[in-house]
């Protein structure tokens, strides 16, 4: 080996901490890391807002304990998706918006609101709220997530294996989630048996594909 420093890549000078080889290798492979990073912020904005909205949707499935359990899995896994990708945003020299309103506004998937208006007292008007309508909101939220993480897989394939790995892990779970809500909505709305075909998860929010960075027990 020569004495020349050979660990610099993509025009990053030895010892230069103002640039990241971890970003330049992506740029060299034809993907703009800043554009990708902004897309990731939009995508985890959606994970974060659905984590919030699913809290509300789940509790309005009152008395439907099996539906609540499935929704809880999906809810906690969305939080896991958010947390899996947050560090990647910072590695790509981005940050979470300081204002949570900006974060929600730029989320790449729609607000998953309880499908009923508010009543005069500022609570939900639940008089005509149907279980099947809640299940449909859940299903469409999962479908949006599948499309988002598929787009991010497309953007990163052959250019950024680290982000690709995260996106495909999340995509695995989003496809699980869609299958769950297809099964539940088919039965509830159409009295049709349309199995997800899955085996049971472990603890609620198990996130078997996406929780690969469990640093402590509270995560």
């Amino acid at each position: 080996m020569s004495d020349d420093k050979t660990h610099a890549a993509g025009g990053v000078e030895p010892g230069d901490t103002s640039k990241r080889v971890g970003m330049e290798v992506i740029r060299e492979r034809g993907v703009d890391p800043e554009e990708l990073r902004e897309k990731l912020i939009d995508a985890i904005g959606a994970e974060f807002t659905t984590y919030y909205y699913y809290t509300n949707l789940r509790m309005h499935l009152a008395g439907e304990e099996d539906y609540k359990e499935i929704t809880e899995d999906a809810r906690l896994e969305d939080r896991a998706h958010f947390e899996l990708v947050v560090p990647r945003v910072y590695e790509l020299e981005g940050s979470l918006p300081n204002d949570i309103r900006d974060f929600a506004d730029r989320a790449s998937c729609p607000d998953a609101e309880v499908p009923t208006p508010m009543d005069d007292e500022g609570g939900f008007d639940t008089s005509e709220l149907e279980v099947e309508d809640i299940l449909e909101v859940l299903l469409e939220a999962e479908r949006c997530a599948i499309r988002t993480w598929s787009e991010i897989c497309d953007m990163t394939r052959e250019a950024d294996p680290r982000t690709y790995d995260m996106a495909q892990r999340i995509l695995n779970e989003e496809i699980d989630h869609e299958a769950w809500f297809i099964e539940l909505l088919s039965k509830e709305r159409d009295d049709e048996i349309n199995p997800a075909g899955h085996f049971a998860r472990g603890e609620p929010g198990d996130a078997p594909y996406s929780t690969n960075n469990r640093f402590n027990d509270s995560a």
Partner: protein
Amino acid sequence: MMATDDGPDIWTVTITIPKDVDRDDAGRTFEIEVSADETILAAARREGVWLPADCQQGWCTTCAGRVVDGEVTHPHARRYHDEDREAGFALLCTARPRSDVTVVTDQYDELLAFRAKHDRPPGNAKFNDD
């Protein structure tokens, strides 16, 4: 329009890709048949014309285009405003033809700036941290 005895009307949609986009089909124009109950995005992808999209629920604006001729409707779009329509913007993921239509694709940056000017999301939320 092609007349159909049963089923929805079918319209001709002319899709113009701007010259400056970073795809192999930059600058090309495609003509596709789109039925009235189908979205322009879904029909284009079916025909092998890969247009940008993300949510496919008329929310994120990734699929923004501009209608230069003809009429579209957005019955299922989650975030599409009268002023978007008046300015000629369409969200191709949810836009369904109501006549023969000509659209220009890849108007995301333009719609983002327009939304920001009108203080509508995701406009300013995407600019605030730059």
